[in-house]
């Protein structure tokens, strides 16, 4: 007998796919937002900061709903995407990835922002006096020294994506094989009479997954900090 049922395998693989896509695609934006928040002063910065942190403080269902009215088939952006490119994201795994990516965004940004703020700006200043362009300073000084924070942010964001429920079920719905990630599968099992046994297995699976991803991120963080500050 295989270790996992097809129902569980499907949910697990989908969860990994959704979380990976969400984290990878949002990372450049998260780094950019973190850099802007850490290093730039501009009018409306606190409004921008609030916008970035919005998913952290409003109910996930609200975020899901907002995504639906913008990116849904009849939504402002969604309708345009459908008409121009024939792309429909609502109720697909892409929608699940967008929902969890948005929810995880503030956590990733916070971790990276703290790390950028910890980089001594005088190091960047010295790099400039050595003739480095702003882009080269960013690529050769700021970002390498921020790497521990980026790893931490990615780990945090990935974990958040694996646990995403409210925004996903609102925006992407609960479609087997398309948007039914682990938390949604667990929710489904709990709603089926006699589904407790299946629910317990999913709980254990979620816990194992969480511990494995924590372990992997810890290992990466250690390697990276050796690389950055090492002797």
């Amino acid at each position: 007998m295989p270790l996992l049922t097809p129902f569980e395998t499907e949910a697990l693989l989908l969860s990994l796919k959704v979380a990976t896509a969400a984290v990878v695609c949002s990372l450049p934006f998260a780094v950019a937002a973190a850099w802007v928040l850490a290093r730039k002063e501009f009018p409306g910065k606190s409004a921008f900061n609030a916008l970035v942190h919005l998913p952290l403080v409003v109910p996930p269902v609200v975020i899901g709903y907002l995504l639906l009215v913008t990116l849904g088939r009849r939504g402002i952006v969604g309708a345009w995407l459908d008409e121009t490119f024939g792309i429909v994201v609502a109720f697909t795994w892409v929608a699940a990835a967008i929902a969890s990516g948005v929810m995880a965004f503030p956590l990733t940004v916070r971790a990276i922002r703290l790390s950028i703020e910890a980089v001594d700006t005088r190091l960047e200043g010295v790099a400039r006096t050595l003739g480095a362009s702003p882009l080269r300073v960013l690529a050769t000084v700021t970002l390498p020294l921020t790497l521990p924070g980026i790893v931490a942010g990615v780990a945090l964001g990935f974990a958040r994506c694996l646990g995403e429920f409210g925004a996903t079920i609102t925006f992407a719905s609960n479609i087997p094989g398309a948007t039914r990630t682990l938390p949604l599968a667990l929710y489904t099992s709990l709603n089926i009479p006699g589904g407790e046994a299946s629910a317990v297995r999913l709980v254990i699976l979620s816990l194992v997954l969480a511990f494995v991803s924590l372990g992997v991120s810890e290992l990466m963080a250690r390697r990276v900090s050796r690389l950055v500050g090492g002797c």
Partner: protein
Amino acid sequence: MLAVDIGLRRGGFALEAAFTAGRGITVLAGHSGSGKSTIAGAVAGLVRPDSGRIAVDGRTLFDSAAGTDLPAAARRMGYVLQDSLLFPHLSVRGNLTYSRRRGPLTLDRVAAILGIGALLDRRPASLSGGERQRVAIGRALLSGPSMLIMDEPLASLDTPRRTELLPFIETLRDELALPILYITHQWSEIIRLADTVVLMDGGRVAAAGPLQTVLTDPDNAGLVPDGSVLEAVPTPDIVDGLCRFETPAGPLFLPRRELGRQRMLRLFVDAHDVAVALTPPEGVSVQNVLPCTISGLAVLDESHMELRLALAGNQVIRARITRHAGEILGLRPGMAVHALVKSVSFDRRMQWRGID
């Protein structure tokens, strides 16, 4: 030549500074908060003044009237700070070769001058403070700078490391003929290194000029240590443990201890260690007697006065005596007297003790 004339206001602090720095080492001196580091940052291009102009060898780096503000990357200013600020994620070699600009110096030459050839594959975290600072200097040199800015480069080092690093800085001046803007508040460093001193006080230039002039100008009392300098060249002539030194004011006999290999020494002559006599004294233990003329006389308080003594070779030293002694001897400006300096007092000063 560096020409600075800038104004800058940050909160309650106002900086208004104009000076020029030529060949050799120009020391920007003054207490912390006097605006020295702000000027260094403005010249390097990391601090933007509100107004004024900065130019190097006729090349304008900053001019508020013309709207010129050359980015730091285009200024060719080597910048070395108190914390060496090496890139922690790069090896020593990676730090040294960070700049893509090419100057006249090769990596091998710089490594040889600074004695860091054996460190190239090490990480900054494994270096000592002195080694780190030498690598930081090397990194700046390899970016082909037209000038070196050193902001308190020795401040975070202990005394043995400072002593170890000073000759390297002199080498940059002498062998590479690189103009250096050197920032410090330590008079020991100023006395040893400065060709020109720009003395900052409360965001303004309080005095500027050759070291000896700045030290002996009565207007600078309170800003400079109570003393003066004599430049002395050691000779091989040694009698009873005393070495004969040639100075522009005449020979001096001093203990040769702790001199190292230096070709020229700046001797700090503490005003309190100088006495005057109307006639060449006999039967005293003081060995250094220099004929001189009183060029200036100032009453300090109810019991003390200070003399400025003009020696041969356009040298000036300061002497602090009691008013009582001045009255008895009838000292007047223009009088020919003899300055008496104890050899042991030089001995103490030769260790370049910090005075402030």
